[in-house]
């Protein structure tokens, strides 16, 4: 079994995943190989699997290449850095899992383990360094959280149960929502210091 992701580790810079799309992918040699098209999340391990690429020209479309997370040198605010073009793989290496449960994360419903929909996903928050872990979601809340269509941030456990259309969270996680990224970082930090790993344990060993 894999080790518990991020337990006790400091929280690195948090980045909204959707903000990564369109960011140039640059080698350490200073050549741009393209720009990020899709941010592909690995639902089983709760982290970024990699990126698919598109060309940077006005007339260019999607590329057949992808960057697996292992080939990412750094996820910067202005560029995604890769050591060299050699880390690029075929597009299929990143996008196909056992099953591309597919679809954009945006708009997926957030369900508690009691079956209450507490919101819809606006974006997924990832940790820019380390293992590229998915640490939280930005969502538009439902009445169940008290405010209708308020933007709230919800910290996720180390292995969030998610598919392309549903994200399941333990109901007690929804009691600790943050209003912004800073609040989310604090919540993630609390969770890691707490170290019980309980939150997010829903769906553990259960088929999605």
């Amino acid at each position, binding site marked *: 079994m*894999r*080790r518990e992701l991020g337990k006790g580790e400091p929280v690195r810079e948090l980045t909204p*995943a*959707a903000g990564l*799309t*369109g960011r140039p992918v640059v080698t350490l040699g200073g050549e741009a190989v393209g*720009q*990020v*098209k*899709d*941010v*592909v*999340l*690995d*639902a*089983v*391990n709760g982290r*970024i*699997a990699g990126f*698919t690429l*598109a*060309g940077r020209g*006005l*007339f*260019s*479309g*999607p590329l057949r290449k992808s960057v*697996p*997370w*292992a*080939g*990412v*040198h*750094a*996820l910067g605010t202005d560029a995604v850095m890769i050591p060299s073009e050699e880390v690029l793989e075929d597009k299929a290496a990143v*996008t*196909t*899992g*056992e*099953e*591309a*449960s*597919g*679809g*954009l*994360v*945006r708009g997926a419903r957030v369900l508690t383990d009691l079956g209450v929909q507490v919101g819809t996903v606006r*974006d*997924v928050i990832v940790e*820019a*360094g*380390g*293992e*590229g872990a998915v640490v939280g979601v930005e969502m538009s809340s439902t009445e169940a959280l008290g405010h209708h269509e308020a933007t709230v941030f919800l910290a996720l456990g180390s292995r969030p149960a*998610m*598919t*392309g259309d549903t994200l399941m969270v333990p109901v007690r996680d929804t009691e600790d929502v943050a209003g912004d990224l800073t609040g989310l970082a604090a919540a993630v930090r609390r969770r890691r210091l707490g170290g019980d790993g309980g939150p997010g344990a829903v769906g553990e060993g259960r088929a*999605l």
Partner: protein
Amino acid sequence: MAWWVWCVAVVAVVGLLAAVVLGVQARRRRGGVIVVRRGRRSGRGGAR
């Protein structure tokens, strides 16, 4: 028809085509955050 009408027509058609291609390609370049399920290769390193 006067010869320049044909020139205008050709330029218009070329411009329209270019605009359509630009629009289509811009849409194809646009992506999003997608979820796939994969469990085989876990424990891979990555950025620091």
